[in-house]
Structures are given as structure tokens and as C-alpha cells.
């Protein structure tokens, strides 16, 4: 992400707008390409030299904030390492101790003093069993500017390699293979990432965020949880109007903030909202509005709105399409089965306070009947316990469960809900599920008061 000083936005009539760049603009494409080359060229070189080279690009360029911003995003894909033959702090400590008895150590020596500096360095080098040059260079090898660029995206070098391995193209992978899709590094990638980062930077000063999403609920709410945001959730229809139950919901609206928001406006959670933002462009249809505190003015906060029409691109992963083999198999069987009932994945979101419960499937009939189903598969006892606790918290009539016989539990664990449980061995049969749905599904009210 960008540092706050690299943020670029304009506020007009209480509306904040990031100064997005046009990704097809040749000027920016050229800058991006130059920067990427520059990083590649500096593999194995000191960080200070890389920084100087970046600064050089901004000498007569008023877009220096853009250049530095793009460079920051590339630096996020880099690793820097200390290259030294001995611990730098140890080297210099020995040097200073030894030098203290030898002062003056000077550059224009008079007779008798001319070898002091050399003697100090070589004595310490000998003590540590390293070369004189390694001693001199190692003395401050741990300074930020002296650290070496050892990895840029998928290209890396190490201290001992003769020459660097070269590949024809650089690919940028995310920080974690699990969290991010591997993306081919291109100028497009960098410029798209930059626009997203500009939007994220506006959120550093956000006190509250409202989101509306119409798909990918499971993904969105797992990122809400991952980044430690608190929520209030409301089911909404296709127009964004709130509806009474999740059965009627086409989407969900959520208010996101943190614990202390109960008492005061706080920017404390702005960084979490900024981290969360890339989860939204994973949805096909979404809207976001945030309140941005303006430290400079005493007036109320400004508004910042974004949506799927802004063309932002996410680098986050949507996660696995299915949590387990059981779910995947059922979905596949359902496609081949002949039943009017439809299987919908992750269609309902239940607000349980500190987190949400998103049942695996909704089963819907064209006549308006609807049941929701949660599959309890092969998991640890702790998982089972928390899952059961969540299920008991969800107070709806049309809830059914599919539970693996391999789990160490029985009808008693489900209390009143025992009748709603479908026990299965290795896989479920579509018609068993349909039978359960026929029994427990309820008609969805189409009117709401």
C-alpha cells in the first residue's frame, strides 16, 4: 500500500475522490515500464542506489508523487537483505574500541600517525577472520541504504551466486500464495494496483464504512473478519432497500467499524478498511461509501463512494469455490439430477454478532418455497462445537442440516432440531436432500412491512 504522503485525492463539496490515473495513458505506461526495468537492474545492488535511481526519475517531473507511488508498490514486492561477512554491529564495536586508544586517526597524518587507520581495520579483520575489504564494507552493511535487493517479484539473487539468474519476464506474486492469485507482472498490473492503492489511501482516515454487495458474500465477510472489522448486517433487495428476512435478500448491506466506534468517531480502523477494500472488487456488483475524517477542518466528515463501475481490479483471492469435496460432489450431482429444486451456493448471511454464519446452500423451488442447508463434514471437535453453537444461534424455521456419520455426535447433540438432520456416509444423495427440503422449506413472503 502507499504511505500517506503519497496519497493523491481531491475533496470538493464534501466528496473525496482519488486522482485515478488513466491506465491506457502512454505517459504512465512508460513510467511504469521504466521503473520495472530499474528494479530488475538493481537486483543484488544496495537499496540506497535503487532509491537514488528512483529519485533521479523525479528531478524535473511534477508527477513525482506518482513515480514514488508506483515505486512504493514495486518495493512491496521486494526483499532486502544484509550482506556481511560478520555481524556489522560486532565489527564496528571492535573498531571503535580499538580506535579509542589510537586517536588521532586522521586523513593527513604527520609522521608516525599515517598507518593508524589501516592498522585498526586490519587488526579487527584478522580478529574476525575476514578480509580487510569485508571488514570495511561490513561495518555498516546493516544500514537500510546498504542492504541488498535480493528478490524482486519472482527474481532473486543471493550473496554467493556468481551471476544472477535471469528469466525473460518478471512475474509478480502476491505476499502469500494462499491469499493472492498469482498474477503475471505487467504494466497493467502495476497501474491497476496503483489506482486501487489510491482508493485505499483515502480510507486511512475513514471512520465508518458502508458496503452493499449482491454476490460473493462468503468471500466478502471472510475478509471483514480477517481484517478485524466489526459489522452490522442487513438483508437488502435488488435496489438496495432493506428487507425483513434473509429469504428475501438479493444482497447484503453492512456497516463496518470497530469496538470504540460506539463512543467516538475514530480513524483507528481506517487502515483495516483500506486492507479490506480489495475484497470488494471480487464481487460482480458492489457499492461502498465511507466517512472520511478531515483533520484540517472542524466541519463534518467528507464522503467517499466507490462501486463496481469504477473499474477497480482486485489482487485478492476469492478463496476456494467449495469448502469441501462433499459440497463439490453434491453440486455436481445436482446438475445431473432431475428436480425442480435449485441449489444455490452461499446465499444467506446470518449476523451472529462477532461473526457471520453463511450456510453452504439454499434450496429453492420455483413456487417460492425455500430451505437453507448447512453441511457439517469432517472436522475437529473444536470446529464441530463452534459450528453447533452457531447453528443453534440461527433462529429460522427452514434450516436443515447434513451431518457426516463419521462425526462423533448423535441426534441428542441437535436437540429439537434432530428431525432436520440428514445423516450421510461418504456423499449425499440429491433426493434425500430434496425430501428434507419438501418437509421443512417455507414459502417466502413476497411482501414486507
Amino acid at each position, binding site marked *: 500500500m502507499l504511505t500517506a504522503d503519497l496519497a493523491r485525492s481531491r475533496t470538493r463539496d464534501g466528496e473525496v475522490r482519488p486522482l485515478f490515473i488513466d491506465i491506457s495513458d502512454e505517459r504512465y505506461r512508460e513510467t511504469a515500464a521504466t521503473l520495472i526495468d530499474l528494479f530488475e537492474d538493481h537486483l543484488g545492488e544496495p537499496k540506497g542506489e535503487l532509491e537514488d535511481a528512483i529519485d533521479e526519475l*523525479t*528531478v*524535473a*517531473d*511534477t508527477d*513525482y*508523487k506518482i513515480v514514488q507511488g508506483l515505486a512504493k508498490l514495486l518495493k512491496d514486492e521486494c526483499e532486502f537483505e544484509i550482506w556481511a561477512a560478520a555481524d556489522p*554491529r560486532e565489527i*564496528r564495536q571492535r*573498531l*571503535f*574500541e580499538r*580506535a*579509542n586508544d*589510537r*586517536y*588521532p*586517526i*586522521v*586523513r*593527513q597524518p*604527520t609522521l608516525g600517525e599515517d598507518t593508524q*587507520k589501516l592498522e*585498526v*581495520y586490519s587488526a579487527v579483520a584478522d580478529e574476525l577472520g575476514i578480509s580487510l575489504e569485508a571488514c*570495511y564494507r561490513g*561495518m*555498516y552493511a546493516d*544500514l*537500510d541504504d546498504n542492504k541488498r535487493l535480493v528478490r524482486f517479484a519472482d527474481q532473486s539473487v543471493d550473496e554467493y551466486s556468481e551471476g544472477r539468474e535471469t528469466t525473460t519476464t518478471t512475474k509478480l506474486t502476491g505476499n502469500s500464495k494462499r491469499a493472492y492469485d498469482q498474477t503475471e507482472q505487467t504494466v497493467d498490473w502495476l497501474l491497476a494496483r496503483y489506482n486501487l492503492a489510491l482508493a485505499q489511501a483515502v480510507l486511512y482516515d475513514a471512520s465508518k464504512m458502508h458496503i452493499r454487495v449482491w454476490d460473493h458474500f462468503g468471500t466478502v465477510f471472510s475478509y471483514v473478519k480477517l481484517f*478485524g472489522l*466489526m*459489522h*452490522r448486517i442487513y438483508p437488502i433487495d435488488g435496489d438496495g432497500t432493506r428487507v425483513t428476512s434473509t429469504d428475501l435478500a438479493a444482497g447484503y448491506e453492512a456497516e463496518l467499524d*470497530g*469496538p*470504540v466506534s*460506539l*463512543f*467516538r468517531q*475514530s*480513524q*483507528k480502523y481506517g487502515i483495516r478498511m483500506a486492507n479490506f477494500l480489495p475484497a470488494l472488487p471480487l464481487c460482480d456488483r458492489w457499492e461502498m461509501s465511507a466517512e472520511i*475524517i478531515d*483533520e484540517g477542518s472542524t466541519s463534518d466528515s467528507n464522503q467517499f463512494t466507490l462501486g463496481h463501475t469504477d473499474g477497480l481490479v482486485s489482487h485478492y483471492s476469492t478463496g476456494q469455490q467449495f469448502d469441501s469435496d462433499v459440497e463439490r460432489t453434491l453440486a455436481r450431482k445436482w446438475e445431473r439430477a432431475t428436480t425442480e429444486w435449485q441449489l444455490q451456493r452461499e446465499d444467506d448471511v446470518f449476523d451472529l*454478532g*462477532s461473526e457471520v454464519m453463511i450456510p453452504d446452500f439454499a434450496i429453492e423451488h420455483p413456487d417460492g418455497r425455500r430451505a437453507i442447508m448447512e453441511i457439517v463434514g469432517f472436522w475437529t471437535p473444536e470446529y464441530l462445537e463452534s459450528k453447533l453453537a452457531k447453528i443453534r444461534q440461527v433462529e429460522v424455521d427452514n434450516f436443515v442440516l447434513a451431518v457426516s456419520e463419521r462425526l462423533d455426535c448423535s441426534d441428542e447433540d441437535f436437540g429439537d432440531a434432530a428431525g432436520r438432520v440428514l445423516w450421510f456416509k461418504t456423499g449425499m444423495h440429491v433426493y434425500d436432500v430434496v425430501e428434507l427440503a419438501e418437509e421443512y422449506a417455507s414459502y417466502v413472503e413476497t411482501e414486507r412491512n
Partner: protein
Amino acid sequence: MRIDFDEGTLLLYDAPETVPHAEWDDRVGTHRAQAYRYRTLLEWAGQWSDSGGQATLDSGFTHDVEDAARSYPALALTPALQIEPRDYQQAALDSWRTHDRQGTVVLPTGSGKTFLGLQAIADAGVSALVVTPTIDLMNQWHATLTNAFGEQLTDDVGVLGGGSHEIRALTVTTYDSAYRYIDEYGDQFGLLITDETHHLAAETYLQIPEMTIAPYRLGLTATYERADGRETLLEDRVGPVVYEGAVDDLAGDYLSEYETIQMSVDLTPEERTEYDEEYQIYRDYVDSHDFDLWNEQGYAEFLKRTSYDPQGRRALVAKQRAERIARTATKKLDTLDNLLKRHHDDRVIVFTANNDFAYDISREFVLPCITHQTDTDERTEILDRFKTGEYSMLATSQVLDEGIDVPAANVGIILSGSASKRQYAQRLGRILRPTDDRQPARLYEIITTDTMETYVSQRRRSGVSSSADS
């Protein structure tokens, strides 16, 4: 009722409806209060006892409380150096104690506020977090706390900020780092000390005292009043002003005398050519736009223009390059060379205004070196060795202002510096001491002739002349 710490707030389980300062949080289905209400809540429940942090049951308690919030340990410490507090320091400490160890002490710069902090830590007998506005000040507190308590602590003094992330029974941090992490660690400290407390009144920083449960709080500042009047917000979060010392009582006493010697060097012909080229680019731009650079507004206008005018951007870079040439002039090192020869038996501190130059000098003359990049514990170690005489010379790009534990030097050499008057007055006043045989301390200032440095030096000296040149 059960009290638990949750991200800078308190969750109050099974709280009666009458519980003060709490709101019902429908998101989690329990009462919630801000963390700084911790002590008030315990007092309300009749469960607060001021015995060095050990909570005991009073006979007249009204509510049973299970305290799962407190995670801070008791800590018995005595400052290693038993220095008698000055009268006003003792009066300030006494007043803070009678105000239930909550409140702000206002004392002028240079009056030993850090020393007062040490006394408060020893007095409160609980783990403490010290919050400072800058990394410099954080480092100074680290050095002072390590000197005073280091041998009594099982762990080192912790540092949160400047690249370190260690939480210990005594921890130093900056306002920025504290703001970022306080919701995680707000239950770990019984005493919150905020240095330069007036900064705390900023909207973001106010959340630092709000998000900690510390029942004891001490604010330290020389200038409590703010232009925006927000200092009134501090009373609720830190406590009232418990002591205010006037400048008159203290001024002058603790500044030492020294003589200033100015030395000039010329640029080499190559440096001169490059300097003149860059300076001309800057000057032409400024002249063609009529900025009044000696006035703050004029300079701000110039800076603003550099953000959209490519020529302006080039002019700014030219100015920076010219400054760097003057600052790091080769002949300065020749002069330094001579001075180090002359003073090799003295205790010498060499000041530079930028890190690179400090490191160049450190390599060249094998001098220990402290910059903004030096780790807090290495910095403390180097200063300690300088104090004990293990090191007799030091290069630094920082203001060294260690309160009661200034490592004294008798020779200062300024190779380059900013024109900030206040910074220099402090720098010079604190560091230099006459030698044991009463030779006055000396301060050399090496400047490059016929460059911008000449003006900077004149401005600097006009700010400190009354105490330094007399």
C-alpha cells in the same frame, strides 16, 4: 460483573443497568466502556484500592467484580543514582501523588522532567509506558530509563517504534506507534507517562490515553496551552494540571559556558562550479516568481508551486543539491582532520545535519556514530560507553539531550546543521561542560564560505548569542 479488555475498550459482562460510562453494544450483546474508565469503574464498584496496584476488597463494596482486564504487573524499582530532587521537582511529585497519581506537571525545558518521570515510575510501583512525540525523545527516555533501572529489570527496557516491537514492563514509544498499537497493549501498563503532553490533545493521539486502562497517568510538558484550546480535553484523560513551575525560577542555572569559534572553508573548484550551477537554477526560478523566501509564507508558496510546475520541481532539487554540496564540502573534512589532531585527548562530539555525512566521518576517522537509524539499544550502549570514557569521541546527526544523564564533552564540532534556533540552543547548552582543570568548553562551527550556509549560520547564532557568546 466481569471486566475484560477488548481492543482498547472494556467489555462489561453481566453489568447492572446502572453501570456508569457504559453503552450497550448490540453487535456483541454486552455492555462496553472506554478503557480509561477502568479505574472509575472499579471505584464505582468499591473495588479500587490504591496500594501500589494491588486490588483488594473493601468492606463496603457494592458490586462483585471479576477483573479480567488488568494484565499489568507490579514493579518495584528504585532509581540507581540517588539524586536529591530539586525543590520544585519534589513539590511536583508530591502534588501528583495527592492528586491520586493522575495529572500533568508543567515545567520549563531543561528542568529535569525526565527525572520526575523516573520518580513517578518508582513511586507508582507498576509497569509503565512512556509516550514521546519523536523517535529522538523516545531514544533519550530509553537511555535514561536503562541507566536508572536497567540492573533491576529482568528484561531490557522495551521499545515500540522506529522498527522495534518489544513490549516490556517498562516500554518507550512514540505517539504515532502508540496510536497504532494501543488497542493491543492498553491493558499492559499501570502507569502512562506522556512527554510533551500538549501534543496528546490531537484528535488521533487522544485515543492513546482513552484506549489504556492505566489507573496512574502523568503528563509532562513545558507548554500546556495550545492555540486551539484543546488542552481542556486532557483533563478527563490524563488528569488536571497538578503543578506548574515558572520559567523565572529555573532559567539560566543549568546552562554551561563555552566559547564559539567559527571556521570557514572554501569549496574546491569542481564543487564551486557545480554549486554555482545548481544555485543559479534555484535562484533564477525564485527571482522570476518573486517569492519572499525569508518569510514562511513565501517559502510555502514556492514549495506548493514545485508540486505542479516542472521548472519549480527542478529548482527545488537544485536547492537541495546545492545545500548538500555546501554541507559536505571536502575541505570540511580537512579542517575536521586538524581539529581531531588538536583535540585527540579531549572528549569530542562531531555534529552533522545528515546521516550520510555522519557515516562517512565514522568510517574515515573510526568514530562511533549515532544517527536516526541507530537502533535504540545500540544508541544507549554507545552513549553509555561515551559516558564511562570507553569512547572519547562521537559523531552524530542527532540532538543529544539526555536530561540528567548527559554524557559531557568539552569540544563540540558542528560540520553542518539546520537553522532551527531552539534546537541549537538546547544542543549546545546541554552537551558541553568545562574540563576538570577548568578549561572552558569549545564549540567549533565549520561553514562553507559564500554559500547558503553562511546565512544559516548567521541566523543560528543570532538565536543563541545571549547565552553562548557571552
